[in-house]
């Protein structure tokens, strides 16, 4: 069954023809060419596919494209402003919070969701919020530091010392 779905993606209105079973992540990656959102598992557990729908973090591998009808979707491609990275992306770069980078788009989207609900999270709260985001490379340590730094910069504070003991540029 083919249907038309209309939604907003990174601020732009989009329409596409999808099947009932088309997942939001398939629409984003295969039809809209937005391959920043990754698919890491088939079991809704890894969080590589996290995007925001109407401002909330969801797993785009576990949402039908048709369920996003009329909604506003934000993917990792919509986070930076032109060539200027978002402070949370900059904090990931500054703290070496990625190795292969596969989990990173989902990590950044989850981090932004956390900071929206809790602008000044503790390290423990950051770790708890990342329960649904798996990273095979970093051991999470630098990801947690990056999120604490990104949150501080988003609050307008000076960034805390990073993994190398240096303040962010």
């Amino acid at each position: 069954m083919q249907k038309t779905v209309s939604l907003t993606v990174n601020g732009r209105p989009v329409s596409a023809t999808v099947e009932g079973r088309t997942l939001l992540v398939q629409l984003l990656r295969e039809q809209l060419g937005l391959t920043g959102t990754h698919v890491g598992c088939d079991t809704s557990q890894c969080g590589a596919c996290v995007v925001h729908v109407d401002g909330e973090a969801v797993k785009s591998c576990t949402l039908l494209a048709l369920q996003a009808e009329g909604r506003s979707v934000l993917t990792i491609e919509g986070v930076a402003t032109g060539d200027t990275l978002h402070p949370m992306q900059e904090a990931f770069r500054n703290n070496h919070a990625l190795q292969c980078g596969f989990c990173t788009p989902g990590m950044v989207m989850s981090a932004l969701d956390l900071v929206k609900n809790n602008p000044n999270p503790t390290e423990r709260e950051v770790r708890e919020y990342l329960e649904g985001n798996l990273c095979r490379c970093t051991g999470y340590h630098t990801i947690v530091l990056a999120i604490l730094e990104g949150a501080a910069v988003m609050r307008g504070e000076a960034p805390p010392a990073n993994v190398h003991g240096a303040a962010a540029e």
Partner: protein
Amino acid sequence: MYEFNYHKPASLDEIANLLAANDEAKLLAGGMTLLPTLKQRLARPSDLIDLAAITSLRGITDAGDAIVIGAMTRHAEVNRSPVVKQGLPALAAMAGMIGDPAVRNRGTIGGSISNNDPAADYPSALVALNATVHTTKREIAADNFFTGMFETALEPAEIVTAVRFPKLQIANYQKFRNPASRYAIVGVFVARFPNAVRVAVTGAGPVVFRVPEMEAALTQNFSPDAIKDITIKEDGLNSDIHASAEYRAHLVGVMARRAVAACG
């Protein structure tokens, strides 16, 4: 996933008609259980009927001495609701332990109880708190709602509309989580009412169950010591790669004592 027809009807009547006309159709709530099942091709519904447009199924109502939670209310909303935090803090805390933040932004109370996974958290809360399930046809006491593994008292084409919980301050849920799936290996919900205590266990058996010996002992003396000698038989309990039946039986005692201690 096999292909299906997707519908998003605007009224419950329309949904009931679609369901009644087609046994191969299935309701879609948050999709956090149903879509992974379809992705694994473990089910092949002809039609998915999305409940998302039915606004009457959403939201949390303060009903004096009770709280009514609409079937499509998501775990994150229950976790953050001032009404639930104030009137039934143990339930708000439990909702915050389900899965992870993205799962809690989609998964619903109606979907969780209709699915009745043996390791789900909500069934223990409904049974311990003596909640009532409201459907499109009737009201069902929680004690009679959860009938077996992935089985409930719901009839075909019957839709959960809401759950009504009494307000209660002295209650606590302790969950021994599977660290990978985040479901309960064993979860125990203890609720202390003015004249009685109810203890409900999830994760340990094929379906949520109460522990009458613990309830009687705690009604006499509400302290962890009162139940320290009560043992749970391992017969009929779940045994899998995560935990043996014997280990689960042991955990029921440990989690129950922790829950009573946490009630203060």
